[in-house]
């Protein structure tokens, strides 16, 4: 039987040392059995490596930064759709999700582009700044945390949190500060990049374990694969990892999705303490950059997302291969200056 043709727009082509999830998501889409997929890359920067990965990305269009607002994004997507006839868009950046969530109805009605995103309420309530309330609501332990808006507030943190503590950006970045001086330095560095507020979180000693998962929006966990990073970069990103057997972690993911009816991909970042207690330190509202491990372990979460976006019923995955590993590598793409010129000046390649 001939495969159905599908055109999917994907963001997060920054396959760099702190990678976006775009390329792993695309690899997962290329592995789909029922679809012959054409990938339209949606990029923000001319040096996102995915733009030049022509074996994975068929064509790329620059899109406006999230700060440009919803109307300019909609206008740009309208132009892209007039050429490419997009079936689905999978956004992969936290910072762009707000705009895409707001535009999802317009995309469907005006352009017949499907998405499969969390609701705005789901998206907002799992923000780092709202995590303590989130933990209480869904019965998950969360380290104590608070938002700060100025450096003057750092002096009082020693009494409130003690050191070390974790300094986090509202979207990305986290650093462990062992002194007020370090906390101030990280405050400046992270707020300079991602703006205010800064989130201060109690440091929790233990092993970081993460789960990549997908919910159907009706309270069912469609798939979940837990992983421990076995090689970590200086930015704290996984350079290698292994799929774990962890019933408790799976139960946490299941209960969470049952409770808040999460719609779409997400990642739980947890700390497992020496006493085998689990603390939620973050929920990312999209697939993580290591989502291809789930595919390798037997659960193609992006494929499930595509099917649900198209309105198909998807049965939950029943198992995955424990012990399946991933190891990242770096690779120098050789590109012609002409290509860089084209994406830079014309905004498409």
């Amino acid at each position: 039987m001939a495969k159905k043709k599908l055109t999917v727009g994907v963001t997060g082509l920054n396959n760099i040392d702190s990678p976006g999830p775009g390329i792993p998501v695309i690899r997962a889409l290329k592995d789909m059995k029922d679809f012959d997929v054409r990938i339209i890359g949606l990029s923000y920067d001319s040096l996102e490596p995915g733009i030049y990965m022509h074996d994975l990305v068929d064509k790329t269009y620059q899109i406006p930064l999230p700060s440009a607002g919803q109307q300019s994004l909609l206008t740009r997507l309208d132009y892209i759709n007039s050429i490419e006839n997009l079936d689905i868009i999978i956004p992969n950046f936290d910072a762009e999700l707000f705009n895409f969530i707001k535009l999802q109805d317009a995309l469907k009605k005006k352009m017949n582009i499907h998405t499969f995103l969390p609701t705005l309420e789901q998206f907002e309530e799992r923000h780092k700044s709202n995590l303590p309330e989130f933990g209480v609501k869904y019965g998950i332990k969360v380290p104590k945390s608070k938002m700060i808006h100025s450096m003057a507030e750092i002096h009082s943190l020693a009494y409130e949190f003690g050191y070390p503590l974790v300094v986090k950006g509202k979207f990305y970045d986290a650093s462990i500060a062992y002194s007020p001086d370090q906390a101030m330095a990280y405050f400046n560095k992270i707020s300079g990049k991602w703006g205010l507020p800064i989130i201060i979180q109690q440091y929790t000693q233990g092993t970081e374990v993460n789960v990549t998962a997908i919910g159907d929006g009706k309270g069912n966990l469609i798939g979940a694969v837990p992983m421990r990073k076995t090689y970590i970069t200086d930015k704290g990103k996984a350079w290698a990892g292994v799929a774990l057997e962890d019933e408790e972690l799976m139960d946490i993911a299941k209960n969470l999705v049952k409770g808040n009816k999460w719609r779409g991909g997400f990642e739980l970042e947890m700390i497992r303490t020496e006493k085998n207690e689990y603390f939620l330190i973050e929920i990312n509202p999209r697939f993580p950059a290591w989502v291809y491990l789930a595919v390798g372990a037997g659960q193609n979460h992006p494929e499930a997302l595509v099917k649900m976006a198209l309105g198909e019923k998807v049965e939950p995955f029943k198992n995955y291969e424990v012990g399946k590993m991933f190891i990242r590598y770096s690779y120098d793409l050789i590109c012609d200056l002409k290509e860089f010129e084209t994406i830079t000046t014309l905004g498409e390649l």
Partner: protein
Amino acid sequence: MSIKKNLALSDTGFVFNPSTGDSYSVNPIGLEILRMLKENKKDEDIKKHLLATYQADFETIEKDYYDFVKGLEQLKLTENNG
């Protein structure tokens, strides 16, 4: 003393703990002991088996077995330590 039930042992002496993702290598005697522990054999029976199989006195076997088991506990590969 029992080791974690889900501990994966391979013939090469590669040991994988699927709960933590940690892996280890043990020598053939270590592998033999782990297999016996996985079969729920008692400590005394394992030591007796080692005494009958290898050329070592009982004190040495007892000491080495104790060290090995303590190592397993420290690595949280025993059942009670999760």
